[in-house]
């Protein structure tokens, strides 16, 4: 953010600021304006310093708080400059504890790490955050309560999926603002089929094709560094547009690759990059009642009904073949018969385990159709043999193994 003439230019913080106006006690600085019309005489008063603005980073962490009062600093006769009236400047350790000596609070902000309200009266300044009503201790990186959202692969006491650099916890879902935007773009693509809009989201305003290096100009912000278990992606040039250099084992990749239906590069590491961001988003737990009767869903959110499956479909083709066809784009997910899903004990199970496994392995959203568990024929109920609540499924040995 840059203040322009007649004020001096100040670089406050990179990327687009997300302001939140908070009310504090009025200061004594009063700006008065008079307005006249034919019948009345009115006086309007605006008290400066009442409005606070926050600059947040990509996780919603409040880094800087300032107000609307310009602080006058005389330099010499006839020359003056105005300073930004900074109320607090905060830097955080990954799990949200503020770094001692790396910031200050004067007047303070009500909001801090992840944009959540601070409950300073609980255990000292900056040592407890409300996190909705969950209660969070940034010094321990733990909540007071279990996560209200159930995640199959995570302990309910884990915060930020143990990855506080990439994830923020807006609502217990580990969604960053960037992640939400990408998810919305993907959902919109699946609804409308508007590939151009999706590609625009992936590519930002960059002109050209997605190759080794992509330029993302997102209206919000992009994590400065995205860690991926396999590949590493570094974002450089943090102001305005983001040039994402894709690095594999320390070598920059510049090789163009073909692009699949969703506008992702199928070679190189663009897909891995975007996949990493969207994968985090997709870990959101879905409730059966909230799903439309049919559509597409993240396969990881559906459980298996059987304990084991055969390697092949009825027609003799292997489901691993389906996985690779899905990955390569040879098979369009829309052409696959939707899996039937039912709710049992508050959890979502499928009756079509092999197709689900193929889509899980391909990490592609799967078409589904809701079925009423209570109306299932007895024979289908007998399919339920899972012993671990459908989290995983065993693949049986084939005749050639």
């Amino acid at each position: 953010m840059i203040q322009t003439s007649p004020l001096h230019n100040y670089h406050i913080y990179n990327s687009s600021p997300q302001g939140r106006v908070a009310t504090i006690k009025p200061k004594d600085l009063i700006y008065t304006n008079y307005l006249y019309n034919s019948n009345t005489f009115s006086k309007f008063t605006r008290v400066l310093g009442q409005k606070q603005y926050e600059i947040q980073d990509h996780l919603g962490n409040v880094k800087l708080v300032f107000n609307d009062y310009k602080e006058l600093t005389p330099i010499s006769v006839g020359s003056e400059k105005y300073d930004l009236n900074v109320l607090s400047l905060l830097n955080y350790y990954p799990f949200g504890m503020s770094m001692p000596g790396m910031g200050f609070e004067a007047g303070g902000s009500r909001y801090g790490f992840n944009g959540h309200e601070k409950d300073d009266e609980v255990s000292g300044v900056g040592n407890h955050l409300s996190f909705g009503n969950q209660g969070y201790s940034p010094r321990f990186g733990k909540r007071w309560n279990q996560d209200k959202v159930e995640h199959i692969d995570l302990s309910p006491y884990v915060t930020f999926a143990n990855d506080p650099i990439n994830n923020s916890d807006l609502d217990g879902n580990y969604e960053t603002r960037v992640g939400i935007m990408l998810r919305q773009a993907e959902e919109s693509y699946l609804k409308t089929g508007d590939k151009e809009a999706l590609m625009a989201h992936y590519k930002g305003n960059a002109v050209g094709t997605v190759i080794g290096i992509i330029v993302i100009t997102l209206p919000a912000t992009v994590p400065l560094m995205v860690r991926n278990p396999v590949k590493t992606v570094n974002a450089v040039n943090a102001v305005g547009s983001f040039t994402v250099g894709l690095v594999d084992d320390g070598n920059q990749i510049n090789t163009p690759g073909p692009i699949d239906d969703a506008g992702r590069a199928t070679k190189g590491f663009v897909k891995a990059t975007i996949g990493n961001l969207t994968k985090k988003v997709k870990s959101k737990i879905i409730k059966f009642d909230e799903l439309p009767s049919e559509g597409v869903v993240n396969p990881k959110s559906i459980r298996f009904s059987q304990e084991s499956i055969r390697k092949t479909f009825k027609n003799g083709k292997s489901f691993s073949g389906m996985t690779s066809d899905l990955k390569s784009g040879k098979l369009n997910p829309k052409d696959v018969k939707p899996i039937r899903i039912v709710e049992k004990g508050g959890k979502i199970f499928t009756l079509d385990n092999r197709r689900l496994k193929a889509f899980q392995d391909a990490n592609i959203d799967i078409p589904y159709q809701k079925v009423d568990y209570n109306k299932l024929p007895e024979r289908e109920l007998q399919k339920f043999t899972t012993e671990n609540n459908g989290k995983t499924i065993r693949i049986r040995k084939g005749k050639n193994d």
Partner: protein
Amino acid sequence: MIKYNSNYMNYNEFKNFLELMYNNYLENSENWENNNLESFLEALIAITDDLDGFLIHNERKYNKNNPSWLTFADILSTAIIYE
């Protein structure tokens, strides 16, 4: 669809079940997931192997070490649709 009593099955009921199953195959084999002998036998092995899980989800009065005619009807019936 082969219906049978899931509480108890005697010798005659099991024989009746097998007849129903045979007729169902004659009329309806395209709806059987495992409609050839190889896949059906493989499914029989699989469901027998997964019987513990079956008994978690389906309430039965028998157990694995004390099977009844109903056990065999369950295994045969499930093998029709087991993936």
